[in-house]
């Protein structure tokens, strides 16, 4: 009798960002290789994973990555949707699935969303900001598009370790905060280093005619932080959690405005 079916080999990769390992299963070796390249430096050999996703690759069919993201929670199950992917995650079982075409952007969006959901419950967050370590301390540089995140990252001196030029990973720990490197890139298209350090300051970026640091009132600090947080979930509890996390952060970490001209001397003020 000929065999009617054969086992399909299940390939595995563990991507660890912010100290949280996520296992990805796929049956497509080319997709696996793509992920290994995309997340180089963040792939671990860890047996343990906080979440395991099965990726179901679909044929290309006009998926729209610019469609709005929708993240909803119902009966213990998160549903994540955008034009180019659909995913589900059940925290209780630590498992989920992702349906997408064979591209690195969809799973990247899923990972960002899942990390925001996990961090929100722990007092942390993902922030639209560049970040770097200097002299053992992490510095965050927040701002909207064109604020200067990529520029300040490019200007970083050799003794600074770039954590990201686009999305900072901030985890609450004891009485302070730790910033981790991320593979979530912006214009620089360069992965951050997979290291971490205590957060010493958050700078709100502004381009100007001189390099200077100015204090800002606490209310403005909280508003600016909230405006730059990544958060997608339509979930009242998590919205409240992230709101209070922002206030907690500005009460513990100095927040200032960093006005800078685009040259490397701005880093003389940092560290």
């Amino acid at each position, binding site marked *: 009798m000929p065999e009617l079916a054969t086992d399909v080999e299940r390939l595995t990769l563990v991507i660890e960002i912010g100290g949280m390992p996520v296992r990805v299963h796929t049956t497509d070796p080319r997709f696996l290789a793509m992920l290994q390249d995309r997340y180089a430096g963040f792939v671990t050999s860890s047996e343990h994973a906080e979440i395991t996703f099965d990726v179901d690759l679909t044929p290309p069919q006009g998926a729209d990555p610019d469609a709005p993201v929708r993240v909803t929670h119902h009966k213990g199950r998160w549903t994540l949707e955008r034009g180019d992917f659909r995913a589900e995650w059940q925290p209780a079982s630590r498992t989920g699935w992702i349906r997408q075409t064979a591209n690195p952007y969809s799973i990247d969006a899923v990972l960002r969303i899942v990390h925001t959901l996990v961090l929100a419950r722990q007092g942390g967050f993902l922030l639209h900001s560049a970040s770097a370590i200097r002299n053992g301390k992490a510095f965050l540089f927040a701002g909207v598009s064109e604020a200067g995140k990529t520029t300040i990252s490019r200007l970083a001196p050799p003794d600074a370790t770039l954590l990201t030029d686009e999305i900072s990973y901030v985890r609450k720990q004891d009485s302070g905060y730790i910033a981790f490197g991320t593979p979530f890139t912006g214009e620089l298209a360069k992965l951050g280093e997979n290291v971490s350090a205590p957060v010493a300051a958050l700078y709100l970026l502004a381009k100007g005619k001189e390099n200077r640091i100015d204090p800002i*009132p*606490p*209310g403005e600090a*909280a*508003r600016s932080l*909230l*405006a730059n*947080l990544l*958060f997608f979930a*339509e979930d*009242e*509890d998590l*919205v*409240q959690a992230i*709101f*209070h996390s922002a*206030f907690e952060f*500005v009460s513990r970490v100095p927040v200032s405005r960093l006005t800078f001209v685009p040259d490397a001397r701005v880093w003389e003020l940092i560290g």
Partner: protein
Amino acid sequence: MSRLYMARNPRVAARSLDGEMMIMSSRDSTLFTLNRTATILWQSADGTTPLDEIVEHRIVPEFEVDPAAALQDAETLARELASHEILQISEQPILPRNPVAGESWAKGSTTGESR
């Protein structure tokens, strides 16, 4: 003239920082920063103290304004806060665990200063 009562929406997140009251809608993450008068209304919105008493005891003494004009302005502001689902307003006292009050938060639209 009927009296107006106000209660805070328990589904918004609120925090006072350095004298500024900030409120975020849990439904759509819209962030509001309240001015001083709106902050007084928010802090006084216990569901049982009528608006005219709040104006008389909190707003008129603080701002030294004409009571009638202050009440009219406060009512306009209270209705605006209600339209953003920050406050619930009613011509009857709003008691805790009032199921009708609970239902009312699911209605209406929210706009305003966004994140």
